[in-house]
């Protein structure tokens, strides 16, 4: 007993002597200077730094700082120069000529020329390359390099998403990879790139260190070293951020709305950023199944779901309702479209029109069959919560809904691929190019293809085909505004919300644009800097 008593005393003593070294740092210092280290946290380890093969977001986050594309998106999501200083589309819209900047170098000093671009195109279209992204580039019927600074591609048919595909293809060095097998090369762990950072070292499972490259295509960055620590658990990331050991992490709505405001000390040294995210969540109907083949039923369910409530409940208000599959604020988004307002009355009258009657026990019935279905979704907390909120609202108007949550691989293979589902809650990305052919064209319904809801509308098919062939931006905009209108009217899916991307950054990092531009806070990361007085001292010497 005595020992335990002593132990408790000791514990109390230990707790009480927690040191209060609340060093007061003045974050007002804004003097731009080069140097310093930025430490961020990522949840998963990159699999491979050749992004045409990797495909996971951790890999592309690192690879995009090492490699360049021909062109890139600027902060307002328009194209701007990267490796290519300019590009020209021919009159018949079938040929694109890229002029490559002069005097470019790989980080090992070898010149970067059109030969590297041509090599990369050859590589991604080579059937032996294990890349899932080759299809877009095989549409090029002819690629030419008349000189070191020109790269010309010709398409059989004009292909409007072409520029977007060239903005996402990272150019690889020919002089290193020429005689390598791209599928197993060591280059994926020791890449030589052309961008403002190069790989310092990579400690498996622990951290990836990038150091600045002085001969990058976009010039040198201000911050000398980027350390990405691999911390799978977000609570641990948060503790590291609280202790000041990391500078940057992605956070969730609860941390943004509840945790940070409750911790004034932490709040004082952290800036929270909010930007339009890259994806949206929807409720998708299986249009090949009754009763979802009836537009009125789909619209009724759309009216019966309170999107504002879902955004408040699931995202704590950190999201927006959408009415087209494009980022709000970009030109592809049709501003005249409004989401279906919450109206159980309208829902009920539509269902009555479709032949449903309220039965004695408050459920809708048609021809002796109750209106009931199952919502399936994968193991994703936000989607699960969304499904529960929808279940409740639908019950109010007499629809019986059950929910099933399934592990991802089973979800895709047993339900999505086979078309064996009623309704799903899932997400799509808000792609930068407006082309949505793979998702909505009626020809894309085979197993493993992406129009798995089975949407078929001839007008939409036509628009999607036209949109792919039109390179004139203004004409293209009209086409996709029209497409969004039909899609909203037909309601094959219910747009639920587009959540914000939330990031917490230590205030020592300066140069981040607030409020975030459409491209997000990272787009100018080479302009970020850390004033001398705010650097961690253990890293400044050396």
């Amino acid at each position, binding site marked *: 007993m005595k020992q335990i008593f002593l132990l408790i005393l000791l514990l109390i003593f230990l707790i009480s002597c927690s040191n209060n070294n609340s060093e007061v740092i003045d974050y007002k210092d804004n003097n731009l200077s080069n140097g310093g280290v930025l430490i961020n946290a990522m949840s998963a380890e990159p699999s491979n730094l050749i992004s045409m093969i990797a495909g996971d977001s951790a890999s592309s986050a690192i690879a995009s700082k090492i490699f360049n594309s021909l062109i890139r998106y600027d902060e307002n999501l328009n194209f701007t120069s990267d490796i290519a200083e300019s590009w020209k589309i021919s009159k018949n819209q079938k040929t694109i000529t890229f002029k490559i900047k002069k005097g470019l170098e790989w980080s090992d000093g070898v010149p970067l020329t059109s030969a590297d671009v041509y090599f990369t195109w050859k590589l991604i279209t080579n059937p032996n390359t294990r890349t899932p992204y080759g299809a877009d580039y095989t549409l090029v019927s002819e690629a030419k390099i008349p000189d070191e600074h020109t790269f010309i591609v010709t398409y059989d048919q004009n292909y409007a998403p072409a520029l977007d595909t060239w903005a996402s293809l990272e150019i690889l060095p020919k002089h290193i990879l020429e005689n390598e097998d791209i599928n197993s090369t060591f280059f994926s762990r020791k890449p030589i790139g052309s961008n403002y950072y190069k790989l310092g070292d990579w400690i498996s499972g622990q951290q990836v260190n990038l150091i600045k490259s002085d001969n990058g295509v976009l010039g040198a960055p201000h911050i000398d070293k980027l350390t990405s620590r691999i911390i799978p658990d977000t609570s641990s990331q948060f503790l590291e951020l609280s202790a000041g050991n990391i500078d940057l992490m992605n956070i969730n709505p609860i941390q943004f709305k509840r945790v940070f405001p409750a911790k004034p000390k932490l709040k004082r040294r952290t800036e929270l950023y909010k930007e339009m995210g890259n994806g949206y969540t929807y409720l998708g109907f299986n249009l090949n199944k009754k009763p979802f083949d009836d537009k009125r039923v789909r619209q009724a369910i759309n009216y019966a779901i309170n999107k504002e409530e879902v955004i408040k409940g699931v995202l704590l208000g950190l999201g927006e309702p959408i009415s087209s599959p494009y980022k709000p604020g970009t030109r592809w988004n049709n501003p005249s479209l409004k989401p279906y307002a919450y109206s159980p009355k309208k829902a009920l009258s539509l269902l009555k029109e479709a032949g449903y009657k309220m039965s004695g026990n408050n459920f809708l019935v048609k021809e002796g069959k109750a209106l009931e279905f199952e919502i399936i979704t994968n193991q994703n907390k936000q989607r699960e919560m969304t499904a529960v909120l929808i279940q409740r609202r639908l019950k109010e108007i007499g629809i019986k809904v059950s929910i099933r949550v399934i592990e991802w691989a089973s979800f895709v293979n047993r339900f999505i691929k086979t078309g064996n589902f009623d309704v799903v809650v899932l997400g799509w990305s808000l792609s930068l190019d407006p082309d949505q052919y793979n998702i909505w064209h009626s020809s894309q319904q085979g197993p*493993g293809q*992406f129009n798995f809801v089975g949407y078929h509308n001839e007008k939409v098919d036509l628009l999607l085909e036209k949109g792919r062939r039109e390179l004139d931006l203004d004409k293209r905009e009209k086409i996709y505004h029209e497409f969004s209108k039909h899609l909203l009217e037909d309601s094959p899916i219910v747009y639920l919300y587009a959540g914000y991307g939330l990031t917490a950054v230590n205030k020592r990092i300066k140069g981040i644009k607030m409020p975030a531009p459409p491209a997000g806070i990272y787009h100018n990361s080479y302009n970020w800097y850390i004033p001398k007085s705010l650097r961690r001292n253990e890293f400044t010497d050396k």
Partner: protein
Amino acid sequence: MLIGISLISFFIMHLAPGDITSSEASFNPKASEESRQKLREFYNLDKPVIIQYGLWLKRMVKLDFGNSFASHQRPVLWEKKDNNGNVIKGLIQESLPITLLINLIGIFLIFSISIILGTISAVKQNSIVDRSITFFIFVAFAIPGFWLALLLMYWTGVLNQWLPISGLHSLDYKNFSEIGQFLDLLKHLILPVSISMLSGLAGISLYVRNGMLDVLHQDFITTARSKGLEEKTIIFTHALKNAILPLITIIGLSIPGLIGGSVITESIFAIPGMGKLFYDSVLMRDFPVIMGILTIGSVLTLLGTLIADIGYAWADPRIRKGLVK
């Protein structure tokens, strides 16, 4: 025996729907179904399971564990050299040492602490000390590890900055001397080892306690006491030796556990160990890695049982004699 185990594991693994091409990242409209089919052909995933098993067995006979699907063809077990002299480390090769280290320290601590606690509570049976020890080990057993881990991380890492929160090394550990690096590693291991140790205490200490109680009630102890031997000698030389005999079996059986890490502990503390490797490869359906870990695990299980039997015979003359007969 091994073939049976591997055959069963192989089939169970393939019962789960999906393969490497159905990861969440590949659910991307930019990735076409044809290219996924192509990938499946590359990895022979389009062939019947029994043929895939045959191919795997053919490689295993040469002790070739193959290459991982998910991490760009990294070798599963051991490093390989490419034509340019770059060494590509194996996945298991990189994850195993740290998991072994944590588990060895853990088991050593569990056994030493449990023997002490178990002996104390047996000797002072039903006293308040016994009761509080039992209470303590059961609380330790019942506390959710991740919860306690987070609390401890917050207390020792954020509030007081005594211990590092996560990871295995400090960021600047390369500038340390070798001893410094080792101490740095130990410092990072304090929390993960204590957390993974806590839940193990309960079982072993109760084993020791009950074994000890059994022995203490036997005739030869009474004889020893009547001979006038000191109580200390009786407990430590005569009783304890007999009481911890069954532990040999437990040690033997825990050998396969040495290579398995806890996913939760490893994720929270950001330790790239075997638990995380196995968990991730199951989620990614990275078949060569799954099979590699399962095979090593089953070899170790068989070995462990053998070692336990041999160790028992070595320690206990009664069993040795039984064997000779």
